[in-house]
């Protein structure tokens, strides 16, 4: 049997954050948080799994799409209107020597990130996107066209998992922010 999602997260965090130099003892605190896993609400990623069976695309409904979704394209991932960038805040790594799920040379992907739920115009499905920051190097300097700030379903910092103003660099050599990626985690419900 595959480990549960929360177990996966726990294992990943333990492994990834054990080398963290945080003075606050991330590991101990996260460990404390983990034991109460049963009382946590379902995360979007779990809902994604629950919904994985219903793979039929939804028809585009122009009456309910957001402005971003109506205008989104699927051909150029170095533009702010690329479909996965529906809730991104930062510089696109694809403009900086990286790619849509690739960090530029000399940087490190953060093991934790915020997530968005974005609609792919090609199949009408919504996907959970992990906006993993690439960290540990001075911010990428590139064209202003690569600096994006979108906010579909973006929440305040007290809902950090879907908040894009946070510097999501935990467990990297430093939390210096370089750029942001947009990797697919799975299909949303």
């Amino acid at each position, binding site marked *: 049997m595959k480990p549960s999602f929360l177990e996966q997260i726990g294992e990943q965090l333990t492994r990834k954050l054990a080398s963290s*130099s*945080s*003075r*606050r003892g*991330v590991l101990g*605190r*996260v460990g404390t*948080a983990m034991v109460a896993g049963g009382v946590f609400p379902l995360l979007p990623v779990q809902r994604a799994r629950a919904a994985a069976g219903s793979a039929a695309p939804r028809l585009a409904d122009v*009456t*309910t*799409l*957001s*402005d971003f*979704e109506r205008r989104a394209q699927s051909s150029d991932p170095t533009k702010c209107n690329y479909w996965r960038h529906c809730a991104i*805040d930062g510089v696109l790594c694809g403009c900086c020597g990286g790619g849509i799920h690739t960090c530029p040379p000399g940087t490190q992907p953060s093991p*934790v990130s915020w997530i968005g739920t974005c609609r792919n115009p090609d199949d009408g499905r919504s996907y959970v996107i992990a906006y993993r920051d690439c960290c*540990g*190097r*001075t911010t990428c300097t590139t064209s202003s066209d690569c600096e994006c*700030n979108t*906010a*579909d*379903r*973006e*929440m*305040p*910092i*007290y*809902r*950090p998992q879907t*908040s894009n*103003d*946070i*510097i999501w*660099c*935990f467990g990297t*050599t*430093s*939390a*210096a*922010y370089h750029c942001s990626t947009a990797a697919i985690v799975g299909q949303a419900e």
Partner: protein
Amino acid sequence: MTCFSRPRYLLLASVIGMGVSVGDMAKAIPPVLQPEQSDVASLPPMGDHSVLVATGEQSFTLYDGDKGRILGTLPAEMVDNIAIAPDRKDIYVAVTMWSRGDHGTREDFLRDYDAHTLDLTHEIELPPRGLAVFKQQNLELSQDGHWAFVFDMSPATGVTVVDLHEHKAARTVDIPGCALIFPWAHDGFSTICGDGSLTNVALAGNNVNVTHSKPFFDANRDPVFEQSQVDRKTGKALFISYTGQVYPVTLGATPVMGKTWSLQAAAGQSAAGTGQQEQAWRPGGDQPFAWHEVDNRLYVLMHVGGYWTHKQEGTEVWVYDVTTQHLLQRIDLPSPAKGITVSPDTANPQIYAMLASKKMAILSATTGQVEKTVEAKASGISIVPQP
């Protein structure tokens, strides 16, 4: 090695200007200009028309709002936070750095600058701060000037309480699932939690007492802005949601909720909903609100759009009477703005609007006219002193 085989040049100019003796001259000849000594400026007590503006992602620049001119500079990057002491005698900046620039040992400090000289007087070590694009509510001060409250996220969340008299971090309070700091009138603060509730932290000598309130807003459907406002002198907060619902709350160990009202209804319009295509006037931007506590007026950066446009620049500033919950005035901005602040005086209040063009527009809050436009290289963020 040093070599004396040929003439060398002295490569230095003196700090002391020379005295130049001017001989007797005919009256028609203008006098020779005299040498000047170098000196360093200091500042008068901070006036009501002072504004600290986040500039160039490397500093907060202090402006004189009447002249539209710079008074001085404090270093701060995008993730750093700034606060002005209630008595305006100190300016505090919470900063994070690494010993080798983008790598090395992480260090977090609360810096204390003298507001008269802008000299750094103390650099207080902190546990790792929460790093996010600037939010006023990630650094707050107690009204008696004794404590600073610094938001932490590692990613577990907490608040470090700093003793500003002793110049050291006193304790860290865990606030699991919560964030942002809204100070009470006395001895405590509240934070907003992911389920729409408040966690309230009372300072009691060497202890803290933590209480949890029931949810008062629907965080899934219509969350309140991080930039919601608090009157630090009274501990009264106005939590304002994405759609424009205003939740008045008197903060404390047991918060007291007031009557909810709507920014749109107060303007004679329908309350806005959560439809992505429901066009309505909505609050938005990096810093959409400014509460003028003495006049009890709320200034809101508004734009037309659907739901999820909570970060969109505003095209107008709407001015509300919070007492009667009515719209008093709509002020057109010269161009869209990312954030606003309003000076604390009642005689001639100014609106400081950080435009998307990176200019700062200074407007009369009374007439709505633009008084100055400054090439400030401003981001969306600014702060003003308290009344």
